[in-house]
């Protein structure tokens, strides 16, 4: 068996073989404050992790199987459940795919509304993620601040979609309902305020000397390994790969907006945690541009025929979600229901880097490395 990934250089004296008493197996999760809804089986030798085996599936719900029994419209609310705080982005590839299958055009205004909603959702997700990253490192202020500021965007999403978390806002052909009249002003105000807050996050968290000393040079994922492991999203961009689906394969109106990709070279936990923070600033930028360019009036939805059917076809569409590229593969067999629906999500693709990065790390680095992978267990399980 040719091992493609080279095994990482272990600290001297550490080995898995021929040692019985020294190795302790820890079940980190699924009921553990530092795991999320998954289990990592960690073998430690002293303070060093010699082996790590992620065991997802604790919250596997069979979304893909469920989708085969529901038609293209009734699939919408349950497909966003894997990541309810990034629900627009996880639904985006599905909606794009169904539009391709059914063959309808989306009105211009709806495209802009979608982009705004997707970017707002990205901010909501990253704040949630950042809050947990803060508490994983023992920084309780960083837990509370993003969790509180998240309300800004949740309120905005509530204004436009009516639901705080599970919006079910995107439908094939556009969006479900129009934005309220004063949305533009409110949105700009919130975004402007939030940009100030983001800078404060930097002051208390990212410039913190203890945080830097703790996360820099831990869990280093080199550029080559990031590519070979097929990581995506912030993990990939933190390792110096300039790749963002919004730029490389623009969907909707991203090609008309000026999207800047944040790339850091270091590839360590610190860089991986910093890229989403920069992405939030970029999202604010995109929202501002989209609000400016959005047509002030017009249709927001092309009506579908009742019970739309796809042809004898298959389609794969992908978008950039909060955790990286999210793809949706739909096989259609001339029925109202998809014959097979596969969600390819960023968390599942980033998970493969976890055992590789944890080997040889200290146990104290485990939460920092694990959560910096921008991993959401429920999404990986689907």
């Amino acid at each position, binding site marked *: 068996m040719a091992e493609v990934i080279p095994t990482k250089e272990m600290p001297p004296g550490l080995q898995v073989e021929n040692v019985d008493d020294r190795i*302790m197996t*820890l079940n980190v999760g699924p009921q*553990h*404050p*530092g795991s999320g809804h998954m289990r990592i089986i960690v073998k430690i030798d002293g*303070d060093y992790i010699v082996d790590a085996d992620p065991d997802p599936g604790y919250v596997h719900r069979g979304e893909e199987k469920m989708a085969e029994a529901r038609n293209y419209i009734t699939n919408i609310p349950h497909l966003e459940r894997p990541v309810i705080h990034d629900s627009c982005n996880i639904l985006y590839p599905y909606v794009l795919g169904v539009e391709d299958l059914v063959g309808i055009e989306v009105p211009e205004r709806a495209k802009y509304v979608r982009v705004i909603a997707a970017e707002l959702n990205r901010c909501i997700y990253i704040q949630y993620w950042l809050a947990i990253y*803060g*508490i*994983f*490192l*023992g*920084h*309780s*202020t*960083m*837990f*509370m*601040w993003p969790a*509180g500021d998240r309300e800004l965007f949740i309120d905005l999403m509530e204004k436009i979609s009516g639901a705080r978390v599970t919006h079910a806002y995107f439908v094939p052909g556009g969006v479900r309902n129009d934005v309220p009249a004063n949305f533009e002003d409110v949105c700009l105000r919130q975004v402007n305020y939030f940009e100030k807050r983001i800078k404060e996050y930097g002051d*208390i968290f990212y410039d*913190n000397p*203890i*945080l830097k*000393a*703790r996360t820099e040079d831990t869990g280093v994922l080199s550029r080559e390994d990031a590519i070979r492991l097929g990581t995506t999203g912030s993990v990939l961009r933190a390792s110096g790969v300039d790749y963002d689906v919004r730029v490389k394969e623009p969907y909707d109106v991203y090609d008309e907006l000026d999207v800047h990709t944040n790339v850091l070279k270091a590839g360590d936990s610190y860089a991986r945690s910093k890229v989403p923070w920069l992405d939030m600033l970029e999202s604010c930028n995109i929202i501002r541009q989209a609000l400016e360019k959005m047509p002030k009036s017009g249709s927001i939805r092309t009506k579908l025929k009742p019970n739309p059917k796809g042809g004898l076809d298959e389609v794969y569409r992908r978008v950039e979600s909060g955790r990286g590229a999210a793809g949706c593969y739909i096989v259609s067999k001339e029925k109202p229901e998809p014959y097979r629906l596969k969600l390819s999500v960023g968390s599942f693709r980033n998970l493969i880097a976890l055992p590789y990065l944890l080997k040889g790390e*200290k*146990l*104290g*680095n*485990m*939460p920092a490395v694990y959560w910096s992978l921008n991993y959401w267990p429920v999404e990986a399980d689907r």
Partner: protein
Amino acid sequence: MSVIAPKFRLGYFLKGIFDNAFWILTIVTLAGIPLIQIVLFYMDLPVIDGELLTAFLAFTWLFNPTMQIPLIKSLLYSDLFRIAAFPGFGFAALIAAATIFVERKMLAKLQLRVGPFYCGKIEGLLQLAGDGLKLISKEIIIPAKADKPLFWAAPVLFVGTAAAFVALIPVAPGGWVVADLDVGLLAVFAVIGFFPIITILSAWSANSKFPFIGGIRALHQMVSFEIPLILSLLGVVILTGTLNLSEIVESQSNFPWIIFMPIGAIVFFTAMLAELERIPFDLPEAESEIVAGWLTEFSGMMYGLVQLGSYLKLYAFAALFVIIFLGGWTGPMFWPPLDTELIMEGTPIPNFKGDPVLTVHAPGLPLFDKDPNEWVLQEQGELQYTSGQLLINGVIWFVLKTVAVIFFILLPRGVFPRIRIDMLLHIGWYKLIGLAFVNIFIALGLVYAGVLGPGGIM
């Protein structure tokens, strides 16, 4: 129809009451009364106004207004009061409770939330009491393969050791300390040395992996930070020439030692944070790595006792910092001392013509009837009585300084993340010990240069 007690019968109810009353009476007669008699037989009873205070006399005097003040005074100057209430456990527990309240509210304000809000109507004042009640009412679960006697003993030992630490802290002039030892500082180090042992014992006895890792981490952390902790205080010992904590405080009547040894203070403060397992050094309880560290298997009031012990320890360490570096209870008087005559002979109150017609004696409070110009007035056995004014003044300064230090102990929790064990040990062994030696050399330099020495500025 369902009722709450379907088989209720008045006869059974009365029988239950009488049964209980019967057994209580029997046990009190057979065990309680002999126990009280034995205690009374061996207890040294105080002599008040020439009369031996027996139990009957105490009950009689309780309802005699003229004898109530002497009774309270005798209680105030008794050993039991010192241990249980004022300089000892009760005082420390009160400050610990206040610390928890302040910690919650301050952290909440820092993090843009309100903190405990509803319990107790005013800013969640009674939240702590509610938490305590909840912990008491919870079931205590012990792991099946735990070493049960050790596991039970660990929280009690922890609180006991913390209380022993508290007992060594003098809070006011004139011997207001539970144990006034000539080797007070050494005793403090000896008591601190117990904490890692208790921690590792409890961690080992739980027979579980996460407590074990937490216990090992706590052991590493406490043992390696004890060395800079002790070394950082040596400078003060060299300059004062005593290990008695009260004498160390009295040596700072003109200036606190932090002026001459800020390095020692910094080293001590950092080592103190590590000994207390506060964030940034809360690795033994790092929740995202090892659940709750060595506290993982504790449930109910066992956990509550450990928390109580750790907050008592926090108070004791803050108080030690105040005593050694910030001058303890020394500070300007809040109001000028009353005249001796005023207290001994009373204040003449004139009528509207200016003739003294009435003499009002100083209030009969136990703390205000001593000569304020002398520290120690009366000796009875080993006890030394202090002027009430000096006592109150000293306690206010002491508490103010202690609260300030506690505030700075709490503050990092809102600012810093947790650090890693190797970084922690690196700080302890490489940096703090070196700085502590620098501090000792400063102290030696001051002594040999003739600037300072035992007894103040030369």
